[in-house]
């Protein structure tokens, strides 16, 4: 178990623009830490800098308390799982698994023992004699995993390891990787663009965009208290609905459309200083207006029936919004439905910086349940 610390790390390829800027984070021993962000946000670069596959332009990297900027990848006590697995095509599965051990001159007996152990753990025993091209995608993924585990490196780095698998296998591997990480007590740094993977696997998540940290926190913190509009929209599926609105200080109301106003409670008024704001609301927070005041009369443009829930899309101004209702609903495209927006569940962001001015009151709507026996 080793700690990984990044202190004011930046990366620049041309000395002018930084692809990563001022990254500060401390990853605890045994933690499952996820780097998530859209493609091109710098998450893979950051991971590769930790691995030593890219130079660090500025700042310091500490692994297990030691300054590691100049260490070669093999000296950092890490293992790395690549997106395309990087299996050696001319070697068998067994040879692939022990390849790194051979390079480190681990004795042959020990090598075989560890290979069998790991292959057993991952169900690879029947395939040990095969070449990578004779394996399915899922099996190749397991070999890559085995190669990483067998090294017994305390820190494991993974770069989108599941993105080449089909959806079903992916969800299975998510839980398997998580279990292995727990069992072996690995410090895991995991890169993905998939917010579902981030939410389901991470102990903590770092959201990156355009080379800058947007937010670091555990999954619920990030979901319930997004630091800005980017995080709010990036995490969650379907994403949070956002719309520009104006805040009227005199009337203490938020005006979304011409004649729809939402009253802002007094204690929040002083938190909101701008006139131009962005209002956000999660799809599951939009309700059918029964007794509440009707805020919008919407026209349904699409309905997705998922069995346990129903996702209904509609247009507000020029934007497509969606709402997620529990259970099964018989709704047709073109139906007109009255909905209400409760002030409590609105998130409000500064329209210029995107910074959150107010988060939805999580505890009022989502109670975080606990099992007490």
């Amino acid at each position: 178990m080793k700690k990984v610390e990044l202190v004011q790390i930046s990366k620049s390829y041309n000395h002018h623009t930084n692809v990563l800027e001022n990254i500060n984070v401390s990853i605890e021993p045994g933690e499952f830490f996820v780097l998530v962000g859209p493609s091109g946000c710098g998450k893979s670069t950051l991971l590769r800098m930790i691995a030593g596959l890219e130079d660090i332009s500025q700042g310091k990297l500490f692994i297990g308390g030691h300054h590691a900027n100049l260490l070669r990848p093999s000296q950092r006590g890490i293992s790395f799982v690549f997106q395309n697995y990087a299996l050696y095509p001319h070697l068998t599965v067994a040879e692939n698994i022990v390849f790194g051990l051979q390079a480190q001159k681990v004795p042959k007996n020990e090598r075989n023992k560890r290979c069998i152990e790991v292959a057993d753990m991952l169900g690879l025993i029947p395939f040990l004699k095969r070449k990578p091209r004779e394996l399915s995608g899922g099996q190749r993924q397991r070999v890559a995993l085995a190669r990483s585990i067998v090294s017994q490196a305390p820190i494991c780095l993974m770069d989108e390891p599941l993105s080449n698998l089909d959806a079903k296998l992916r969800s299975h591997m998510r839980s398997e990787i998580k279990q292995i990480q727990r069992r072996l007590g690995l410090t895991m740094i995991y890169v993905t663009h998939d917010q579902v993977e981030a939410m389901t696997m991470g102990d903590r998540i770092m959201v990156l965009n355009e080379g800058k940290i947007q937010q670091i926190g555990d999954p619920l913190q990030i979901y319930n208290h997004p630091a800005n509009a980017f995080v709010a929209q990036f995490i969650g599926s379907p994403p949070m609905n956002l719309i520009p609105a104006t805040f009227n200080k005199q009337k203490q109301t938020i005006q979304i459309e011409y004649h729809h106003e939402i009253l802002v409670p007094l204690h929040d008024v002083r938190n909101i200083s701008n006139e131009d704001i962005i209002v956000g609301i999660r799809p599951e927070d939009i309700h059918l207006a029964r007794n509440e005041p009707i805020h919008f009369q919407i026209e349904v443009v699409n309905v997705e029936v998922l069995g346990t829930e129903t996702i209904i899309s509609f247009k507000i101004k020029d934007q497509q919004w969606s709402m997620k209702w529990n259970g099964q609903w018989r709704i047709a495209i073109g139906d007109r439905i009255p909905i209400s927006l409760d002030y409590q569940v609105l998130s409000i962001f500064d329209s210029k910086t995107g910074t959150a001015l107010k988060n939805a009151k999580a505890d009022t709507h989502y109670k975080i349940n606990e099992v007490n026996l």
Partner: protein
Amino acid sequence: MKVVVDEEHKGQIPATINKLSFLSRTLNNRTALLYLLPSIVLFSVFVFYPMFKTVYLSFFLTDLQGRPAEFVGLENFQYLIQSESFHKSIKATLLFVLYTVPISIVTALFLAIIANEKLKGIGVFRTLFSSTMGMSVAASSVIWLFLFHPSIGAINRLLSIFNIQAIEWLVDPSWALISISITTIWMNTGFTFLILLGGLQNIDENLYESASIDGASFWYKMRRITIPMLSPTLFFIITITLINAFQTFGQVDILTKGGPAESTNLIVYSIYREAFINYQFGTASAQAIVLFFFILIVTILQFKFGEKRVFYQ
């Protein structure tokens, strides 16, 4: 979100641009140099140095050991411009290129197209068609020397069946260059065929199937699919064949020795004779420079005009 930075590390932070040691920063450069060293040494000794030396020698008259004896400036070149023998050599070379390159390519393309059909036993034909690639210049030339033999050679025997008078293939100045060209075309076929067949096989089968559904004829498919899709390969093989034609030597040496009346004195043979039979290294080098420019022009023309018409995927 706030990030807690350990106190002990805080002191080390100030704008750290990593100072790698000189040795580790230049590690890649040194490894690269080490690995490239054999190539660099060999290229320097056997390509770049002799290229400059050739230029240098072309300004001199040399003694029998090839040592530059007297600086003559551009006189060697002036001599070449006035030399009737050199004019003949250039004319023969250009004619030879004209005879061999188009026919080689068209023949090989034809063979490649018929050998690209998926038929039983096609592998045998492909192997036979590529067989001349394994034939050396010396072996091929000796065989053709006999084929061209005026009285007992197979070609004249064949002609005699049709009551055509025997031709003095290698002795008649109006036939000698053609004879050399025939030999060369035959020798070129194997390699050219192999490359073009490879190019044809790289064309996606679906294109033909889709064209067939549209009711395209054989020639239409040839014009609209095969030739455009094959153009990168054609481009490559035309360049290679052209350059090879300029470098022809062995056929001339064995079949005609540049004769009769210098009608087959191709430029490389001319250089060889000037240098290693007449020991005129200076004028030979001047001719070598001319050869270099010929090939340079071919390459540049190919890149300039070839590239535009070539269809790249």
